[in-house]
């Protein structure tokens, strides 16, 4: 009897903890703190954002509610739906161009460089621009393409053009170029991870059987690199889609992206519910894409 009351007095959590097996207690010790942290600082905030997105602002105050008005507004009003489409186009172009630029480098890393030391050096060469400051990389292109930038001064000095061109900067092309530049190293690493796993014996066998380089590429290398190619492209797309730095620094009137709108809504307009709804839509699209990638990977991947 006494033991029972004491246990009750000790409170529920400690009682549970005491009843655990040592293995369970260890498990809880390692996993409970990070899990609790993620619930409080990640899942709860995401849920709050979802909750906010169903309310609205009235004379600068948030009014909770359960209405789909924000979502309807985003999908049916031109600036919002147009910006989503525009972001998707920019994300897609970025994914395609960075995959194209990345492929040859990944192939050289995987097949042409054989000495381990040289391969490590190449790996570092690829990874350094990826880690270099994001802001600095976007800025570097601004100094190159700007009206007083390197490219214009060079062309004027060479008398190829009479006066600096202004069409180089502040448009969709300069944003896509910059995002491609930023994400190409990531795409290289992603494709390389797939290529690296292709056994040399497979390629040698194909060669011995008389296949040429082009045939080996189309029939062995490319199909086996699909997982890396897809993973790289999907993440590049998602990051390009949600970017707001490149459009702010290098974009123009034709590059109104959805993250930029979201951030502006949080600033001057102070419409947090609408901004939250945009956030939820971007997150939803990202999940959809990742799910799609998992599905496509399972269908296309050739098991070795």
């Amino acid at each position, binding site marked *: 009897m006494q033991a029972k009351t004491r246990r009750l007095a000790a409170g529920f959590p400690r009682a549970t903890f005491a009843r655990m097996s040592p293995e369970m207690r260890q*498990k809880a010790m*390692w996993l409970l*703190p*990070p899990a609790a*942290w*993620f619930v409080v*600082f*990640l*899942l709860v*905030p*995401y849920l709050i954002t979802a909750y906010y997105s169903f309310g609205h602002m009235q004379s600068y105050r948030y009014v909770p509610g359960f209405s789909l008005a924000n979502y309807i507004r985003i999908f049916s009003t031109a600036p919002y739906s147009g910006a989503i489409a525009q972001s998707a186009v920019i994300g897609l172009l970025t994914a395609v161009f960075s995959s194209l*630029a990345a492929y*040859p*480098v990944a192939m050289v890393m995987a097949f*042409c460089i054989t000495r381990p030391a040289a391969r*490590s050096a190449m*790996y*570092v060469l690829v*990874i*350094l*621009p*990826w*880690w*270099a*400051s*994001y*802001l*600095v990389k976007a*800025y*570097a292109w*601004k*100094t*190159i393409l*700007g009206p007083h*930038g*390197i490219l*214009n*001064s060079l062309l004027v*000095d060479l008398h190829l053009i009479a006066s600096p061109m202004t069409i180089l900067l502040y448009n969709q092309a300069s944003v896509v170029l910059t995002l491609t530049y930023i994400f*190409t*190293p*990531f795409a290289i*690493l*992603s494709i390389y*991870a797939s290529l690296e796993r292709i056994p040399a014996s497979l390629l*040698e066998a194909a*060669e011995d059987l008389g296949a040429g380089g082009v045939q080996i590429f189309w029939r062995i*290398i490319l199909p086996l690199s699909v997982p890396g190619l897809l993973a790289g492209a999907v993440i590049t797309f*998602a*990051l390009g889609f*949600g*970017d*707001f*730095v490149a459009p702010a*620094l290098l974009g123009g009137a034709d590059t109104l992206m959805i*993250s930029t709108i979201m*951030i502006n809504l949080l600033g001057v307009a102070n419409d*947090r519910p609408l901004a939250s709804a945009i956030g939820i839509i*971007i997150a939803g699209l990202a999940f959809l894409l*990742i799910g799609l990638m998992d599905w496509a990977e399972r269908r296309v991947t050739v098991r070795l």
Partner: protein
Amino acid sequence: MRAIGSSRLLMAASAVVMLFLYLPLLVMVVMSFNAGASVGLPFTGFSLDWYARLFANTQIMHAIGNSLIVAAGTVAISLPLGVMAAVGLDRYEFPGRAIFRRVVLLPLILPGVITGISLMNFYIINGVRLSLATIIFGQGTALVCVSLTEVYARLQQLGRSQYEAAQDLGAGEIACFVRVILPNIRGAVVGAALISASISLDEIAVTYLLTGRQNTLPMVIWSLLRREATPLVNAAGTLMVVATAVLVTAGLRLSRGGEGESGG
């Protein structure tokens, strides 16, 4: 691999791409030593003038201090949580394990503005005022995945025999971790700390939405850039690139012994 290995076209294409990756950074580094006041050509002469001005700029120096505080705080939060989660994931099966792994990676996969706005809403609802601390909690949460991934990979290589031997010999759980596991994963832990610090020093999306009155370095550069391109930013950018290059090369070397896997 003669057929592929000797392809000149392949070599040429990748040389062009590598040039594309390095030329802009090179331009910036070179122009940071330009004596003239324009961000573009002509290069009027070598000078350290812009670096002198950078170090004399109190706003930027203050921001560098703030950035270092944020980076230290971010590592202090994300590293212990990442190591704990990595040990837990490496050792135990439990319901929701797959979901847990996905949730941890969310801040890496979702665009940063989503984590940013979510934490901003969270702080507003709880009446927390935005400050350096709110940035630290935001980045600290977002970067747990870095420590988790690095340390988890090392633990998987390590295997469990040493840990089991120590346990059989009567070492308690904490003694086991401090004296057996930690010495073995030290490289990965230090590497993860350096990589997290370098990401933190450069982070924009989450920081942008969680910044109060105190600015970090990327925020100050951002506001400088919105106004005009100044050679001052060339100098700041060069220093940032050098700092990340040092941090990340050291971090990768420590955590993976020089040769990397598919990290990014």
